[in-house]
């Protein structure tokens, strides 16, 4: 069976600065892949290039059989990809439910709100609250829920646990694990290596815009010195 997502020799720029150098990776169906690297290594740029928010200069992205490297974000989202951005980007003037409804408007199939609320009971309690009135943890829940509404084939999580209290991280991690066990394909970028490693089946390490290692989760446990070399942990 072919991979759900195949990236070949991707080169992305911000203005004139070259950020990604010939990045290649694959993500299989029902797989959780972690992309690890230091700050500024190109993790977020990789995710933004996948969703089309950054237009790659060269290279090929094949998502579920369609070449997407030239498509705008709305078209890529329409094929079943969702990005949960690092800054969360909740619509502050819309309430929780409006954020969720908006996300589902153009989806081919969508999660009913009850299913979202049973996974995130906190969001149901706050369904009438405006995005600006949510705590950081609630915003992150909403950002993930907003992606799930569209019943995506793949979810890209950009630093989902960053800046959150440990108890919230534990809850969110539980939800992510639950999703992974249900077969949701996920690509996660995370500074919190421990959290990422409890989810990931496979790991790519990115350094200065180059993919330098590809390891299975078992491989990481067998060779912890690799993480140390590139991530300083």
């Amino acid at each position, binding site marked *: 069976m072919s991979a759900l997502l195949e990236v070949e020799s991707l080169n992305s720029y911000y203005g004139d600065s070259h950020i990604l150098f010939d990045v290649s990776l694959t993500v299989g169906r029902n797989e959780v892949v972690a992309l690890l690297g230091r700050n500024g290594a190109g993790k977020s740029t990789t995710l933004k290039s996948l969703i089309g928010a950054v237009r790659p200069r060269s290279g090929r992205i094949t998502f579920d059989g369609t070449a997407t490297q030239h498509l705008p974000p*709305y078209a890529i*989202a329409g094929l079943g990809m969702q990005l949960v951005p690092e800054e969360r980007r909740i*619509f502050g*003037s819309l309430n929780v439910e409006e954020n969720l*409804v*908006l996300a589902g408007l153009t989806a081919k199939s969508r999660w009913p709100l009850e299913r979202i609320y049973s996974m995130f009971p906190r969001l149901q309690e706050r369904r009438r609250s405006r995005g600006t009135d949510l705590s950081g943890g609630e915003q992150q829940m909403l950002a993930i829920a907003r992606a799930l509404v569209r019943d995506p084939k793949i979810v890209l999580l950009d630093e989902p646990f960053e800046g959150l209290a440990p108890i919230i991280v534990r809850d969110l991690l539980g939800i992510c694990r639950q999703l992974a066990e249900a077969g949701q394909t996920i690509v996660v970028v995370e500074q919190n290596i421990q959290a990422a490693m409890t989810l990931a089946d496979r790991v790519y390490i990115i350094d200065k815009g180059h993919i330098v290692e590809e390891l299975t989760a078992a491989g990481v446990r067998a060779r912890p010195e690799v993480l140390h070399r590139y991530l300083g942990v």
Partner: protein
Amino acid sequence: MITWPNFVSQLFNGLASGALLALISCGLTIIYGTLGVLNLAHGAMFMLGGYAGYVAFQATGSYVVAVAFGALFLVVVGAVIERVVIRQFYDRPPEDQILVTFGIGIVIVELVRLGFGSLTKTVPPPSWAAGVTPMGFLIYPTYRIVVLAIAAAALAALYIVLYRTRLGMIVRAGIEDSGMVGMLGINVYRVFMLVFGVGAMAAGFAGIVNAPVVSLTPDLGESILVQTFVVVVIGGVGSFPGAILGGLIAGEILSLTSMVNPAYSEVMLFVVMTLVLLLRPQGLLGLKGRA
């Protein structure tokens, strides 16, 4: 000498012109908020709405047809301008966007001058709204009351579309973060085209409703454009309620100041804008930190 009836009458004038300014400013603010493009052709669109209504009125003699045609014509003009010109400029720097909308404004003004000449055109108020209405101790032009009612109804309609419909939800989200709206699978370019059309319509609609109060000239939009900018700054960029509040405040400032000395009315407008910028830079109802 300022008399009591004179003051109240000016207060009403301010309300009527303020409501129109609010309507035009809503158009400008939703365009800027959603597309990030400051539309310097907005005044020209206000003027064009007046002329479109004038043409329809000449053809049919019907005020209602004139208003409907003026508004619809501007939806189409706005949508076409967005699709053909503005869309090429989203990835360009703001100064390019400002220059191109400024250029579009000049083209519209000169095309109208070419077609209709520089002499003024007039659209009479509808027969049912001609004359004056006695209001206690003062008599007041009936059509100005109609202007106020129409502008209020148009603002209410715009409010319902923005806050009670799915399209409005998309636009409100787009004003905050159009990039994120795109990542949720919504074709933002289609939304941009619609928003530009609706924004242009708000200006054009105000232009035709205002036509019986003023005389139409191709340069009519210039001072309106400046006033509209002030309204948006006072109310808060991208804020629909802010545009309404700012419009009413600006209408009253212009009207009440001109009662004392018309030469100072626009100056007072800038004084108030400066005060707002000093004391509350995001505008009266603007959100802090919005780009």
